[in-house]
């Protein structure tokens, strides 16, 4: 599936919820099923800066596609990270670099993705794109 299609799919899923509590419960569920970073990669070098809770991100290239894995101490951060992984994982570097991450606003994640927010998710998106840059030169 293409990045935009995945985003649309997620927006669809979230549109079923009646209130923020259902939405957050779902995010928390997503957090539990995140593509977990391997323990050997859960090191300081893979920490994302600027979060109140630790947030690790890792990426590998397989057959021209990037596969991300992550973890966070905070389950809500982890849930949003899981959504980001679902959107960007298993895509080519160039698709990742050319994508826009905008539909997601519609599911009310915007507040978590403010550049001044202390959860590091904006830095995580940046870091995901940096990986894409790095791997597109390979």
């Amino acid at each position, binding site marked *: 599936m293409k990045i935009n299609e995945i985003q649309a799919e997620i927006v669809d899923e979230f549109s079923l919820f009646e209130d923020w509590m259902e939405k*957050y419960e779902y995010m928390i569920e997503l957090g539990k099923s995140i593509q977990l970073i391997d323990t050997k990669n859960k090191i300081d070098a893979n920490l994302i800066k600027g979060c109140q809770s630790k947030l690790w991100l890792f990426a590998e290239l397989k057959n021209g596609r990037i596969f991300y894995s992550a973890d966070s101490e905070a389950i809500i951060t982890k849930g949003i990270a899981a959504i980001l992984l679902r959107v960007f994982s298993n895509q080519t570097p160039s698709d990742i670099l050319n994508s826009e991450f905008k539909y997601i606003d519609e599911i009310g994640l915007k507040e978590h993705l403010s550049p001044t927010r202390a959860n590091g998710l904006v830095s995580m998106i940046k870091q995901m794109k940096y990986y894409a840059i790095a791997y597109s030169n390979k």
Partner: protein
Amino acid sequence: MVFDIKKIRADFPILKRKVNGYNFVYLDNAATSQKPIQVIDSISDYYKNYNSNIHRGVHSVSQEATDAYEGARIKIQNHFNVKKSHEIILTSGTTHSINLVANGFLEILDEKDEIIISGLEHHSNIVPWQMMAARNGVKIKIIPIDENGDLNLNIYDSLLNSKTKLVFVNHVSNALGTVNPIKEIINKAHNVGAAVLVDGAQASAHFKPDLQELDVDFYTTSAHKLCGPTGIGMLYGKEKWLQKMPPYQGGGEMISEVTFEKTTYAELPHKFEAGTPNISGAIAFGVAIDYLNELGLENIHKYESSLLDYATEKLKSITNLKIYGESENKTSVISFNIEGIHAYDIGTLLDKFGVAVRTGQHCAQPIMDHFGISGTVRASLAFYNTKEEIDILFSSLKRAISMLS
């Protein structure tokens, strides 16, 4: 006086707002206080009616502004029972005040001297001294804290000696709410000839210290913590110290004569107030002090203590909730964690229910390191909070926990 909480809350416009569809429950008072309309209006009033630069103006409006600014200094002087008004330096806040003193001692101290920092300090009362020590080589010693969040005064005794020149302690810890025995700490320091700086940022919304009786050498606070505006604070310093210390910043106001060869500095307090000060801020700081005094700091403290007891009891009924900082003597701050749940998650969900708390290290990483945690959830209460709001905190917290478990 009966504490008419309804009337008091009506003074604070922000308390009427909604957050995420819920009534706003503001429990982040240790980060900054909310402002009563009297304070807010004093700022507008200044800009609408008598804004002008101060001190050097010959015209009437400049004189009005100067009188209001200097009048604020006198209100602060009286509030803290300070002997001379020029012992009150108006700064941009506690952080500025402490840096001013650290700069003042830069060349007074050297590598043979020692300074003592309490283990409960905010970064603002740690980093300036580390920066100073990096320049003049002073040795830094730390007073450790115990499990309840109290300073270990026995160890403090053992750190004091004739080389000790300065001791730093906050009046109240922002992370835990511990009220420190500053009188005892000051007396012991004076016995070995050391001066003491007390960081009052967390205390002055709750207590009215008598600085002459305390005999403290330096005391500082930020107006924004006590119902005043941002960008203004004060430093009290004993005259002899203020005279001894070199000026911190150079500029207008703080000099009496300038040539390119030589500059003579102005007298106190101007020596330490370079540049155009925060005039409206100072005036509103004075109004905030009036406001608190009208309610009475004793009444405030009594009311807050009963709120704290109520909240502590309720929160303790929650399984797996651990409170950090259980000093006998504390202000209305509750720092806690729920086992197995990250503070950030709790804070995020409480916010969804309209409840504002702070999460994280509270600019006091050494305390967190002491407890071996990465942070806490901190609910800090003010005199305009109510039991009903504590009930909302409690029920929202229970729902958050059940969502996160």
